[in-house]
C-alpha cells in the first residue's frame, strides 16, 4: 500500500495556502517599511457620531494583509473540515481531523454555549471579548478534550505501548504492518504520524501523553496554590516574625537548584528512606487545613450548619488524603487495604511533590504581596471592628479580592508546570520509562533527531501549543480582568 500523503485529495488547496502565506509575509513587510514613510489616513467624525478613516495607501496595504491572513485561515479550516469529512482520503491531516471529531464537537459546543451566555458568565464570559484570550482558551480546551476522549479510547488509533518491528522510525502516513503475527481485524491501517524507534504509533502516544499532562499539571498546581495561599495569607496579615521566617524559607527553597532537587528526590536510596512520602504527607495536609479553616471561619456563627459541614468535608478529604499517602508496603501504611481507595504510583507522587515544592514558594510570595496591599482596605478594618477572627478576614475578605491576579497566575503556572513535567520526563525522572507523556517521548525521539525528527517533533509541538494556549489564556484573563 502507498503511504499517505499529508493532504491527499485536498492537495489542490496547498498552492493557495503557500501563495497566501507568501503574500501575507510580503505585505506585512511592505506595510512595516511603508509605515515609516507614509502618513496614515485622517479620522473623520461622521454626522451620526461614529468615526471613520479615509482610505490612504497604508490602509489599503492593511486591508490586503488582512485578506491574505483570512485566506490562510480559510484554507486551514478547509483542510480540517474537508479532512473530517473525507477521512484518510484527505491524507494524514484528514485522518487526524477525522479521529479528532469528538474534540471538534465538544469544542464547538463549549464555545457556542459560552458565547451565548457570555454576559452572565462574569470573568469567564468576558474572556471571549479578547481575541487572544479566546484563542488561548480554544487551544487549552482542545488538549483537555483530546486527553479526555483519548482516555475514552475514541481518538487513539493504536495501543500507545504496542510495538511493531516493521514500523520502527517509519515516516508519517506509513501503512501499518507487523513483522511478527497478524494484524488485528479492524486495526487502523496507518501510523498517522509515523512510528518511534520502538515501532510505537507517535499519534496515539501524543494523545495518550496529553492525558498525563492535563491530569497532573493542573492538580499539582492547585496543590501548590493551596500551600502558597495557606502560608502566604498569614504572613501578609500578621507580618512581623512569622512573615520574616516564612519569607526566608520561601527564598531558601527558591534558591535551591531545582534539577538537583529532583534528582535527589528520585534517588532510590532517598525514596527508600521515605522522604518523598513524608513530604507528600505534609503537603497534602494543606488542602484539608485550608478547607477546614475556610468553612469554620465562615460558619462558626452558625453551629448547626457548621458541624455537619465540617464532618463531611474533613471526612471526605481525610479519607482521600489517607488513601493518597498510604501505600502498600510503603513507609506509611496507615489505612487497612480494604479502606485504601487508590495507590498513586511512586513516580507520580515524586512528580507531585517536586512540582508543589518548587511552585509553592512563588505562589506564597504573590499571595503575600497581594495580601499586604488588600489588608489596608477599609473593609478589612470594618471586619476587624466587628470582631471577626483573623482567618475569616484572611480567607473571606482578603483572598476573594486577590482572585484576579491569582487566576491569571494559575494559568501561567499550569503552563510552567507542563514544561516542568516535560523537563522531568526528559531527564527520565519520576514517570516510568514507557510513559507516553510528552517530555519522555521528546527524550526518546531526541536520540535519532537528525535522521528521524518526527517522533520528537509531534510531542514537542503539542507541548508548545498547550503552553502557548495557557499563556494566551492568562494574557486574555489579565486584560479582561483589568477592564470594567
Amino acid at each position, binding site marked *: 500500500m502507498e503511504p499517505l500523503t499529508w493532504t491527499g485529495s485536498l492537495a489542490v488547496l496547498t498552492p493557495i495556502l503557500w501563495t497566501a502565506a507568501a503574500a501575507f509575509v510580503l505585505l506585512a513587510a511592505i506595510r512595516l517599511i511603508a509605515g515609516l514613510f507614509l502618513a496614515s489616513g485622517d479620522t473623520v467624525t461622521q454626522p451620526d457620531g461614529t468615526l471613520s478613516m479615509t482610505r490612504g495607501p497604508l490602509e489599503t496595504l492593511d486591508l490586503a494583509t488582512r485578506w491574505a491572513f483570512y485566506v490562510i485561515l480559510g484554507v486551514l479550516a478547509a483542510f480540517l473540515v474537508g479532512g473530517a469529512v473525507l477521512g484518510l482520503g484527505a491524507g494524514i491531516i484528514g485522518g487526524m481531523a477525522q479521529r479528532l471529531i469528538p474534540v471538534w464537537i465538544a469544542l464547538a459546543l463549549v464555545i457556542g454555549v459560552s458565547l451565548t451566555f457570555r454576559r452572565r458568565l462574569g470573568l469567564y464570559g468576558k474572556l471571549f471579548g479578547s481575541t487572544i484570550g479566546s484563542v488561548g482558551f480554544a487551544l487549552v480546551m482542545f488538549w483537555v478534550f483530546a486527553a479526555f476522549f483519548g482516555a475514552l479510547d475514541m481518538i487513539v488509533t493504536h495501543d500507545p505501548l504496542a510495538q511493531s518491528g516493521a514500523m520502527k522510525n517509519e515516516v508519517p502516513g506509513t501503512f501499518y504492518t507487523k513483522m511478527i503475527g497478524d494484524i488485528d481485524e479492524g486495526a487502523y491501517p496507518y501510523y498517522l504520524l509515523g512510528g518511534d524507534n520502538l515501532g510505537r504509533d507517535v499519534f496515539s502516544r501524543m494523545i495518550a501523553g496529553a492525558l498525563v499532562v492535563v491530569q497532573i499539571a493542573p492538580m499539582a498546581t492547585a496543590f501548590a496554590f493551596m500551600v502558597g495561599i495557606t502560608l502566604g495569607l498569614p504572613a501578609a496579615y500578621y507580618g512581623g516574625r512569622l512573615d520574616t521566617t516564612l519569607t526566608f524559607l520561601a527564598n531558601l527553597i527558591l534558591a535551591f537548584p531545582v534539577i538537583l532537587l529532583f534528582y535527589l528526590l528520585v534517588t532510590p536510596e532517598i525514596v527508600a528512606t521515605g522522604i518523598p512520602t513524608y513530604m507528600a504527607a505534609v503537603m497534602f495536609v494543606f488542602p484539608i487545613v485550608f478547607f477546614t479553616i475556610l468553612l469554620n471561619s465562615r460558619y462558626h456563627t*452558625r453551629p448547626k450548619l457548621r458541624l455537619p459541614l465540617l464532618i463531611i468535608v474533613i471526612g471526605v478529604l481525610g479519607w482521600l488524603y489517607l488513601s493518597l499517602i498510604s501505600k502498600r508496603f510503603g513507609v506509611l501504611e496507615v489505612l487497612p487495604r480494604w479502606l485504601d481507595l487508590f495507590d498513586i504510583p511512586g513516580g507520580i507522587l515524586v512528580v507531585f511533590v517536586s512540582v508543589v515544592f518548587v511552585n509553592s514558594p512563588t505562589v506564597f510570595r504573590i499571595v503575600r504581596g497581594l495580601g499586604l496591599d488588600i489588608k489596608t482596605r477599609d473593609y478589612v478594618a470594618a471586619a476587624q471592628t466587628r470582631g471577626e*477572627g483573623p482567618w475569616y478576614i484572611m480567607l473571606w475578605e482578603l483572598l476573594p479580592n486577590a482572585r484576579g491576579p491569582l487566576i491569571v497566575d494559575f494559568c501561567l503556572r499550569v503552563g510552567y508546570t507542563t514544561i516542568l513535567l516535560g523537563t522531568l520526563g526528559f531527564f527520565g525522572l519520576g514517570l516510568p520509562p514507557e510513559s507516553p507523556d510528552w517530555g519522555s517521548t521528546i527524550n526518546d525521539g531526541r536520540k535519532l533527531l537528525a535522521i528521524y525528527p518526527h517522533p520528537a517533533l509531534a510531542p514537542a509541538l503539542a507541548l508548545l501549543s498547550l503552553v502557548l494556549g495557557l499563556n494566551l489564556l492568562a494574557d486574555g484573563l489579565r486584560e479582561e480582568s483589568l477592564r470594567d
Partner: protein
Amino acid sequence: MSTEPPILEIENLSISFFTRLREIPAVMDFSCAVRAGEAMGLVGESGCGKSTVALGVMRDLGVNGRITSGSVKFKGRDMASMSDAELRAIRGREIAMIYQEPMASLNPAMKVGRQLMEVPLIHENIAKKEARARALEVLTDVKLPDPERIMDAYPHQLSGGQQQRIVIAMALMSKPSLLILDEPTTALDVTVEAAVVELVKDLGRKYGTSMLFISHNLGLVLETCDRLCVMYSGEAVETGNIADVFDKMRNPYTQALFRSIPLPGADKNLKPLVAIPGNFPLPHERPPGCNFGPRCDYFQDGLCDAQSIPMFDVEGQSRHETRCLRHDEIDWSRQEIRAIETEKTEIGDPILRMEDLKKYYEVNASSLFKGGDKRVVKANESLSFEARESETLAIVGESGCGKSTFAKVLMGLETATDGTITLDNQSIGDTPIQDRDTDTVADVQMVFQNPFDTLNPSMTVGRQIMRALEIFKIGGTEAARREKMLDLLDLVKLPREFADRMPRQLSGGQKQRVGIARAFAGGARIVVADEPVSALDVSVQAAVADLLMEIQRTQKTTLLFISHDLSIVRYLSDRVMVMYLGHVVEIGDTNDVFAPPYHPYTEALLSAVPIADTRVEKKHIVLEGDVPSAMNPPSGCPFQTRCRWKSEVPGDLCEREVPPMVRFGAEGQHQIKCHLTREKLEGMEPVITMAAE
C-alpha cells in the same frame, strides 16, 4: 471692557469618548471665555466633564477622546489649526496645568531643581545657569523656605504642601498666560490648602496670569475666582460673575447645589440642608431635553423634556447666562422648600468617658539590629472627654493629629498606653477587640471614609450586612437575619433589591449608606464616623449627613464625627473637640468653639475653611509651615511653632511647658489649652462675620 480677544475662548465645544459599544458624550455645547488676568472657576460634581474641558483645551484627550464640534481659541488662534509642534510649544509654556495629586505630577527619580530647570531649557533654549537662577527665583516666589536646599531634594523628601508649591512653581517657570488648575488643593489639609490658595491668588496678580480653576468646592472658587461656570452632566448650566451667580442665581441646579452645602446659618434642626433628589445621570442615559429635568423642582412636563435647551442671557446683568427655559418665570427669591424642621434631640447621660488617654508607638531606630535608641511616636497625648447619649461630638484636626489613632484605641484595634476608656462604667481601654464581649463590640462601631473601600467588592451587599448580624448574634435563623437586613436597608433608605447587588453596582453615596447600615446592624450606641462624607459629592453629602442625623434621632446613638471640614461640623455637631499633634487643644459646645475665645489653632482653622457665601467676611490667617512630625514634636505647647500669638506670652513659656486647660463658660464646658491670659483669649475678634444684609 477691553476689546482685545480673550486669552481663551471656547465656543460650543463638544467632546466625546468613543468605546467599542458607543459614543459617550462627555462635554456638550460648552462655551466660555477667559480674559486676560481673569480667573474663571469651573464647578461641578464628579463626572460632570470639568476635567475633560481642561484636557480638551490642552488637546490631550487620549486615544478615545475626540473634539466632535466647536472650537477652542487661544489668544485668537484656533487650536485645531495648529500642528503638533505648535501645540507642544504652547503646552507648558503658554498654557500650564496643575493637577490634583502633586506627587503624581513630579518625577520621583529626578531632583526638584532639575525638573524646574527643564521647563525653560526645553521651551526657551536658555543657558543652564540662567535656568537655575530662574528656578531659584520662582521657588522664592512660591514662598518655599531655603530654595537652595529644596532644589537639591527629591520630591518624596518634601511634604504634600511643599510638593504642590513645586508643581505651581514649575507651572510658572515659563510665565504662562493661562494656568489651568485641576482641583489643585483637594489632596491637601485645610490650613495648607488656604496657604496654597493664597499663593495662587497672589501669583496670579503678580504675573497677570489668567486662570481656569477647576474645583468641586464652591467656597474655594468664591475665594479665588472672578467668574464662575457651573457644569452639570457635560453642559455648562450657568455662567456669570461670582457675585451674580452666588447671590442672584438663575439656574435650578445652581440653587439646589447651594441648598445642599452647609453654610453658616444652616442648622440640622431648624434649617436643614436639602439634598438633590435622584442620581446623577450616566453619560449614555441622559434624559431628553434638560439634563437636570428629572431632579428639578421646577420641571414642567412637555416643556423641559421637549427640546434641547440653549444658554439664555440673564436680563439686566452683564455676561450672565443660564441654561434654563423657565429662568424668568421662577421666583428665585423664594426660600427653602421642602425643608422639614425637626426637633432637637434630648442629650442624655454620659456613656463614654476617656480620661488621660495616651497612645505611644515605639519605633526602632534600626530594624536590623535590636536595641539602639527607641523612638517614641506620641500619637495621642492625654485625651480627656466624655460623650453623652444621642450627642454628636465632632473631632476636628488635620492629618497626623491623632484622630485615627484615637478611633483605633476606642474600637479596640489598639490598646491604650495609659489612661482609661469607660463605656457604661466598664473599662475597655486595655481590652483588645478579640477579648471584648459581643455587646461591647456591637455597641461601638465605625463608618469609614472611602466609600469605594468600605465594602468587600466580592460579596453581595445583603450578605455583608447579614454577616455583621451573624457576628453580633442577632436573629436566630437565616430567614430572621434576612428580614432584619432588609429592615436595615429600609433604615438607610435603600431599595430592598440592593440586597442582592454587588458593591460595584452602587454609587459612592449608596455604598456609604450600606456602610452605615452595617455599622448599625448590632444596634450600635456609639458610632465613630471617620470623615463619612468627605469623599462624596456635595449633593450627596447632605443626604448622607442627614441620614446619620435621622438615625441618631431614632436610635439615640452617640456619634463621634471625625472631620476636617468645619462647615459640616458646624452644621451637625453638638460639641466640637479640636486636636493638634495628639493633643486636645480646644473642646466645647459647637457655638462656643466657633466663637471667641479661640485657641490660636482653631482660629487659623476657621479662617482656612472656604465658605461659599458672599456675605461672609473672614479674617485672613495663614499658617506658615507644616504640621511637625509626631516623631519629633516641639517642646512645650504643640502649636508653638506655627502660632501667631506666641509673642503675646511672656518669656519662653510656650516652648517650655504644655499649657493647662483654661475653662470658660458657666459650667466650664468650654476648655482651651493655651498659655494666653484669659483676658487676651476673651479679647479675640471673631474670625467669621456675616456682613449686614
